[in-house]
């Protein structure tokens, strides 16, 4: 492995909450030295001049959907891996909501093998909490952990039977497994394509009250209290759910929460005249909700920002809004979209990378996400200011369903390193 010296960078350390000029030395895939005073390159070292750009721990993205097995035409490990590398994501934590669902050690081993062959970035697969994500019987949690499952989730399927969910939580708890759930009251949100309110009423779209998320979270909190499980809410997107989350954390429950980049940067009005690329799950919220969620990321109440990368082909989006599939690709737009919050003055860069890199690593028990000697050299070099207009057809994902098509954005990845090796370098 090459020894490298990344010098003349602005180093973002989310753990310390600092941005400072610095140099970083890499050996054997690990960070070995971080220095604020300039280091001089050893003769056997490959020196990289960062030209004063930002160097941050690579993004750890919880909840990436790679459509293998089942729908490789939408996204494969190869295409997702290239997109992730180009987006500064060094670890993809993949979702099990494939066809079939990843609910057995055999399927998990299959995708782990596929992932290692095809992607330049780290892949940590999650497994389904219940068989077939049906919410009836728990999956083989123990065997799945042995096969490498990093967390358990039924994704957007809510385990609606509290008895089944409580058992799965306590079983997972005994094995120390993290359960990731989608806080939502499914009987209220069934068939909904928008958040209820003036906009949905005017557009005549079936809508769900923002309260459905609070109800789902409240139920889950009660069950965590009952079972003591390790729990992460995949997406908290409404103001009304935040006090419940705050209380649960204050009560010492093992709970964390994430949110998606789309709920942080877009609101329901962006749907405008039924633009299906803006159809995500849960649906986009009001501007008040968006602001509240941004503030919660700032204070650390919401721990993690994810892309919730969900590839959909053109056919499943070119339909009337109610019929169109939900989800958006976001591996390559996660960073520039998140930088909107930085440029708007909502979040400082260390706060941003705390939610993008440090907290996800901490929650999953990974050594990455830090800028300290001994951490893996999974790094991201980026220019926070470079402006561009996004053309969705330039995305490396097989599916091009991004809501940011033709959007003006700022921030480009210059290089991505995984274990000290460059997996992406921008052509300048």
């Amino acid at each position, binding site marked *: 492995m090459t020894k490298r010296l990344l010098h003349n960078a602005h180093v973002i350390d989310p753990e310390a909450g600092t941005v400072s000029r610095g140099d970083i030395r890499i050996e054997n895939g690990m960070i070995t030295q971080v220095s604020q005073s300039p280091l001089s390159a050893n003769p056997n070292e490959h020196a990289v001049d960062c030209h004063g750009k930002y160097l941050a721990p690579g993004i750890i993205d919880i909840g990436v959907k790679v459509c293998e097995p089942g729908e490789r035409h939408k996204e494969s490990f190869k295409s997702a891996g290239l997109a992730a590398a180009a987006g500064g994501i060094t670890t993809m934590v993949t979702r099990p909501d494939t066809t079939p669902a990843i609910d057995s050690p055999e399927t998990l081993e299959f995708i782990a093998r596929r992932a290692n062959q095809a992607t330049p970035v780290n892949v940590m697969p999650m497994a389904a909490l219940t068989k077939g994500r049906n919410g009836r019987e728990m999956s083989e949690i123990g065997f799945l952990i042995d096969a490498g499952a990093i967390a358990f989730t039924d994704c957007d399927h809510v385990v609606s039977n509290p008895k089944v969910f409580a058992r799965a939580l306590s079983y997972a708890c005994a094995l120390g497994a993290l359960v990731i759930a989608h806080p939502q009251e499914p009987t209220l949100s069934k068939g909904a394509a928008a958040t*209820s*309110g*003036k*906009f*949905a*009423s*005017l*557009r*005549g*779209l*079936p*809508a769900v*009250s923002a309260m459905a998320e609070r109800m789902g979270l409240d139920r889950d909190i009660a069950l965590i209290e009952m079972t003591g499980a390790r729990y992460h809410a995949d997406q908290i997107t409404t103001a009304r759910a935040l006090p419940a989350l705050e209380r649960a954390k204050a009560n010492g429950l093992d709970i964390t929460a994430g949110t998606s980049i789309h709920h942080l940067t877009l609101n329901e009005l962006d749907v405008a*005249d*039924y633009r299906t690329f803006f159809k995500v799950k849960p649906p986009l919220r009001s501007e008040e909700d968006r602001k509240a969620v941004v503030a919660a990321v700032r204070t650390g109440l919401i721990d993690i920002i994810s892309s919730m990368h969900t590839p959909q082909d053109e*056919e499943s989006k*070119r*339909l*009337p*809004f*109610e*019929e169109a599939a939900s989800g958006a690709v976001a591996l390559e737009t996660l960073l520039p979209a998140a930088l909107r919050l930085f440029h708007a003055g909502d979040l400082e860069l260390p706060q941003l990378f705390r939610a993008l890199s440090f907290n996800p690593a901490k929650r999953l028990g990974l050594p990455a996400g830090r800028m300290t000697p001994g951490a893996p050299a999974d790094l991201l070099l980026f220019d926070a200011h470079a402006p561009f207009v996004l053309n969705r057809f330039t995305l490396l994902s097989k599916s091009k369903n991004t809501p940011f098509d033709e959007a003006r954005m700022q921030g480009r990845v210059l290089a991505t390193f995984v274990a000290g090796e460059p997996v992406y370098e921008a052509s300048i």
Partner: protein
Amino acid sequence: MSFTDKHLLGIEPLRPEAITEILDLADKYVALNRGALKHSDVLAGLTQINMFFENSTRTQASFELAGKRLGADVMNMAMQASSIKKGETLIDTALTLNAMHPDILVVRHPHSGAVDLLAQKVNCTVLNAGDGQHEHPTQALLDGLTIRRAKGRLHRLNIAICGDIVHSRVARSNIILLGKMENRIRLIGPPTLMPAGIAELGCEVYQDMREGLHDVDVVMMLRLQKERMDGGFIPSEREYYHRYGLNAEKLQYAKSNAIVMHPGPMNRGVEIDGEIADDINRSVIQEQVEMGVAVRMAAMDLLARNLRGGPTPSEVTV
């Protein structure tokens, strides 16, 4: 020329002058329709296709008649019976139709926004004949015309819209149109049938019908859309009729010359008492049907002019 749009997809994009222009022309077509010779040639040589992805008798008949009276070649396609069942997407259906070179496409679809989507993909003029729970612009225009003819104006009136508002595209289009024309709008119905955030549109919301009907000039009843209800919006039809059905007693609270409207088809004894519906002194329900044909003729005439890129040499003479 105020109405210069290519399509008529909803009331929302229309300016008040455009609405007035359509209604003014519709008035002329009412006269034509009441004459002995009910024919004009303004759409001669043009092809009109009525695509109804949802069952309809009255609206489809009204559009068909309007097209035929203006000399268009009219074709009806009952879409709910055909290709949709074979798995064809809306876009493919649109492209197939596009290849037949229609000039005017009249579309009804069960999903909100579907007609907008279709309009983006075809080269001809598209008229929205109702999309999901979004808009039904020609219904609002015909209601506006009916009110204007009965009341002599379409502004500064107190108008009550009653009943199943949440499922009603007619209500949405009317709220927008009557608001643009500067009327005071009251919405009356049980909270379960009231869309969220509707008061933010500048409507007054009432749960008590008598209170809501107090001193109104127009009472617009809506059909209880039982087919769109998956259980539990109202306790029973008889309780609904008791609280929200329009009868002579409740109508007393409105102005003595208030008119009663209903977009049809009516559920007699559910939202409206049969006697009120048939009372020729109060009910303008039959006029609404008549205005429907005239308004659709006017809308298609104006759209066809826009399609040709200017006014036709043969202005309407009646």
